[in-house]
């Protein structure tokens, strides 16, 4: 039993150590005798405008996705928790609302590619309702591509927050609401003075986890646009992937992966501290 843990630790720790070592060598895997080059790979990365663009895109992608995940998740969870809709209906809506979360990324993307196709149903509805004059190229227009990818990512990811927040809402004692009502608090006041403060620890924890995962999101971006058009949707994950597996620059890819790793770990550390403070 203890060996299982040791094997796990080795399986986990070895690659992390390896990737740090790769990042300070000249092109590993491809060169037989790679040399120590110090921080040179990091320097090259930061000098690359595409990498800087990828950092900016990743920040936009992550913050917008996480914010919308929270708003949608909270809105849906509160509707499910209202107690004003029959139980069976609530159960059915709950299943439907979780649905996007069980689809694998490649199915999510392919279905949205059909829906958002220039001759697809979304463009049909938008043109018929006169929202737009001509069919929108959601994926190939560089000004829209990032928004489109974020939208798909929001659709696929909000259920996770919804479920956690729903569990949180169900845990708020009813007498807190009753007391607020006796004090004459209206629905808004109850939301801001009871619901939000009670949910705050869960919200903070979920925001951090969601931030980490969205920052690393690969399949949705890769499958929807491959980082294009014109690097409009390039994120650190897609950029790293291309460095390693299209350009075979494994050391540069490792350096880029190390940067993503360090940022993720920093947020994870804050998360762990936050969880400990809760206990």
């Amino acid at each position, binding site marked *: *039993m203890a060996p299982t843990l040791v094997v*796990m630790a080795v399986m986990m720790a070895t*690659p992390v150590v*390896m990737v740090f070592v790769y990042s300070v060598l000249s092109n590993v895997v491809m060169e037989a005798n790679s040399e120590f080059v110090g921080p040179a790979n990091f320097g090259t990365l930061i000098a690359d405008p595409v990498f800087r663009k990828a950092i900016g895109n990743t920040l936009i992608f992550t913050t917008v996705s996480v914010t919308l995940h929270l708003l949608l998740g909270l809105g849906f969870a509160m509707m499910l928790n209202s107690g004003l*809709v029959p139980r069976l209906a609530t159960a059915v809506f709950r299943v439907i609302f979780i649905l996007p979360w069980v689809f694998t990324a490649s199915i999510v993307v392919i279905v949205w590619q059909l829906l958002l196709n220039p001759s697809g149903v979304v463009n049909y509805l938008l043109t018929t309702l006169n929202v737009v004059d001509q069919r929108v190229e959601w994926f190939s227009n560089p000004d829209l591509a990032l928004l489109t990818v974020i939208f798909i990512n929001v659709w696929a990811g909000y259920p996770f927050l919804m479920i956690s927040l729903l569990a949180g809402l169900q845990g708020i004692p009813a007498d807190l609401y009753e007391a607020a009502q006796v004090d004459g608090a209206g629905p808004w006041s109850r939301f801001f003075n009871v619901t939000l403060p009670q949910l705050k620890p869960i919200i903070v924890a979920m925001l951090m986890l969601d931030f980490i995962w969205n920052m690393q999101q690969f399949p949705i971006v890769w499958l929807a646009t491959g980082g294009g058009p014109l690097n409009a949707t390039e994120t650190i994950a897609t950029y790293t*992937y291309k460095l390693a597996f299209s350009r075979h620059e494994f050391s540069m890819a490792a350096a880029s992966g190390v940067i993503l790793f360090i940022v*993720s770990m920093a947020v994870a550390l804050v998360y*762990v501290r936050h969880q400990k403070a809760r206990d």
Partner: protein
Amino acid sequence: MATMTPMAGRKRHTATRIWLWVGLTAGALFAGGPALWMLTSSFKPNTEIFAYPPTFIPETFTFAAYAEILTDPEKVRFFLNSYLVAGAVVLLTIVAGIMAGYALSRFDFPFKKSLNAVIISIQAVPPITLLIPYFGLVVWLKLYDSLWALVLTYVVATIPYAILMMTGYFNTIPKELDEAVKIDGGGTFRALWRVLVPIAKPGIVSVGAYTFMVAWNEYLFALTLTQSKSNRTVPVGIQLLMGEHSFQWSEMMAMSVLGCLPVLILFLFFQRQFVSGMTAGAVKA
């Protein structure tokens, strides 16, 4: 609102209720609409996919796309591969989760208290960062382009979470139970498999269902660590279809329907366990 008359209160309630139904219906359309469109499109002939105006219910209802997928050995192979990989990963994860979870719940270890922090940190490691050394390791182990490469790398992601879940479950089972088995002359293993495992069944089911979903849905490693068509899993296979015949939308939709069916069925049957698996470890692939 304390001063409100009962009559006004009821009216207010009705208005809230109407808005709730509007909100819930809109939400259901947003969340379920795409899935429904996928399903109806899979029964349309290709010529009807982009019909103008779009047909919400197929005018010509056909199973042709499904027949095409299920009679093509190359495509059936994607499904077989996915079942093999997910099955092996679930099995290994459950066994390792039970053993390590039991050990952590019953015996003392150094660093036991920091286990949670370690497992959360593992979940936070970016898959793309791990992929680079894993690619090297898999090539070195001569496992590149094999399903084993996937099984091996997936369990590294799923086992820590299973350990966390199973430790939590075993902690809720009183130690006196295993003592009783030992007094009757049974060993530690007997106590574990005969007494604890049956009690911990709900936990095992939720670990299993969640692990299956993670393994079935994984894309990045499957894309990179396999190469030949005969070793591709469903998520990668669907995209291959997209690249080869980008106009065969009904086929792609049929394959998508078949591709999400196993996870969907698991989800509908084990909803509660799924949801607890989703929130307990706070993990996502």
